[in-house]
């Protein structure tokens, strides 16, 4: 994996099959993830008002998701 440049931010991605809607990611990444009406994460792009929560918060979210459904990667 190449390092991300400032203009090409690494983001979190969700393994939708593994995700069961615990919502831990949304509380750890309040700027970039909100939950939909059924409790599943919506990853907000900057255009949608998403704000960078920082590398540490992202790493924590990846680590703490009970379903291990979060992983690092550039959005497609």
């Amino acid at each position: 994996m190449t390092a991300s440049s400032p203009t090409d931010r690494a983001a979190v991605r969700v393994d939708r099959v593994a995700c069961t809607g615990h919502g831990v990611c949304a509380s750890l990444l309040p700027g970039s993830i909100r939950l939909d009406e059924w409790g599943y994460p919506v990853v907000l792009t900057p255009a949608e008002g998403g704000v960078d929560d920082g590398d540490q918060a992202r790493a924590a979210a990846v680590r703490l998701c009970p379903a291990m459904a979060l992983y690092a990667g550039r959005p497609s």
Partner: protein
Amino acid sequence: MNLVELLDQSGLTGRGGAAFSTATKVRAAHEHRAALVVNACDGEIGAVKDAYVVEHHLAALVRGATLVGGRRVRYAAHRGSATEARLRAAGLDVLSAPARYVSSEETSLISLAQGGLARPMTKRQPFVMGGADSEGRRIRPTVVLNAETLWRVAQVVEHGPHWFRAQGLPKEPGPRLVGVGGAVSRPGVIATSAGIPLRDIVAAAEGDLDRSGPVIVGGLGGVLLSRAEAAAAPWSTEGLRPFGGRPGPGVVHVLDPDACPVVELARWFDHAAGESAGQCGPCMFGLPAIAADWRELAAGASPAPARQRLLRRTASVTGRGACRFPDGVAGLATSALRVLSDHLADHASGHCAAGQTSRSSHDRVLAH
């Protein structure tokens, strides 16, 4: 010139729906010594061209598949289909997929080929390089190509890239198959190419876009076009882009002018709701919700809020599943809202224009 160069020159792209460069896919397949699964499932609603290729061009298909996958080739078809029977009769290694909509999706077939269920997998990276499913089970490098695409591979090798490029458009070269069905007198497979007017393709199936209902291009994962739009559109990426559509899997379904398109689409969305693989929250809850929203619109109740809710939900499910199934249904729903907005207004005021059907008989159909 080697195979990849030939394919690159020909400009062949996938005929299964995604239209990805076949040369790129084959190069990666060879690089990773990937196994090949031939997708002959006709998984899209109304699709018939994979069966056609297997029935009429099997030898060429096998040649193309062997060039790509060597000895590691399996031929996927839906269980119980005529295609499956033909492939077995030919002594080929058959991958029998359950007759579910998402089971013929690329990653579903890869999962099934490796002993898993025929349900889509999260694609962290292309499976041509191998990977793992969400449980952590290792997946060997595998590539999936559509049956028609592999037949075209054999044709390019036999006749050359120039022959291939002689048909179609510079950006979308080569012959293409399209399955035409619905309110036409001779439904079936039409041999055509990009740039041909859609009205001519439908006419070849003895249908008439001057007298039909709206047209669904691309099946459940496609878009609805009004009759007038379809009658004027060329069969090409550029030609269909204004409507949010693509040539994609090569399926055209012409609706009956005397039947209510809202009721017809309600059936499609209900079907979609029941075809979720049940792995991703937005899909397994979102698609039934979209189907319910459409029924509410069809029933004429609170059209503006129901419309807003439907639009919000179609945007919400898009891109939030492991596969593109919810995206496809969302696209069909959005296009249907656009094309049928007048018709839905009629429903809201208590009558339905198509065939002057009374609303009460609608409700009976919808309620079933």
